[in-house]
């Protein structure tokens, strides 16, 4: 049972434009969400997180939006840079399951110079 879904396996964006990566989840008990970035042959690295008590969290060029009613979160990258080209995973956890993280299958972002 895949509780976290990223329905777009890939996304291409021109440098300088906005990249929007989407993530949907099914478990309404999830209360903490993260985005990870992964380069080839490396492990995922933490990018940004958001708690369910917020609907937006911003860190530099990266902003995560949470829509609890729609069980949807998105990551906005603006402006996009070629170095942002990577696979992005969203993950979710809930106190009720000991904060075990459930990951999506990732979206491969390519930023075209």
């Amino acid at each position, binding site marked *: 049972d*895949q509780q976290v879904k990223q329905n777009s396996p890939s996304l291409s964006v021109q440098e300088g434009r906005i990249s929007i990566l989407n993530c949907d989840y099914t478990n309404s008990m999830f*209360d*903490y969400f*993260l985005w*990870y970035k992964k380069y080839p*042959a*490396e*492990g*995922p*690295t*933490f990018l940004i*997180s958001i*708690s369910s008590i917020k609907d937006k969290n911003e860190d530099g060029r990266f902003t995560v939006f949470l829509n609890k009613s729609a069980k949807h979160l998105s990551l906005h990258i603006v402006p996009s840079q070629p170095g942002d080209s990577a*696979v992005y*995973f969203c993950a979710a*956890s809930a*106190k009720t399951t*000991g*904060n*075990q*993280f*459930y*990951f999506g*299958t*990732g979206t491969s972002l390519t930023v075209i110079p």
Partner: protein
Amino acid sequence: DTAVSQTPKYLVTQMGNDKSIKCEQNLGHDTMYWYKQDSKKFLKIMFSYNNKELIINETVPNRFSPKSPDKAHLNLHINSLELGDSAVYFCASSPQLGVAYEQFFGPGTRLTVL
């Protein structure tokens, strides 16, 4: 200075063999994890472990066992390897078990079972 390291990076072996993957973290974290990323790129938790508690994902076969000689190490032992065990295995760590906090991942070990 690598925070979470894994060895080996690549592992190719025959069906039926027993193998181990080592993981070390120098972050002083209390909790370590093993994840499996299969061919569909689905990253799935296998184990969560700290000094006191081992949480096993019920879907993990008992051929897989984590072994922790100390807080900084969590090795993954796999007995009687099967073709379906081929995947990338990631080790991770976080400050505490059961507390929402980002996890720090190792570079992964690509296991190929022939």
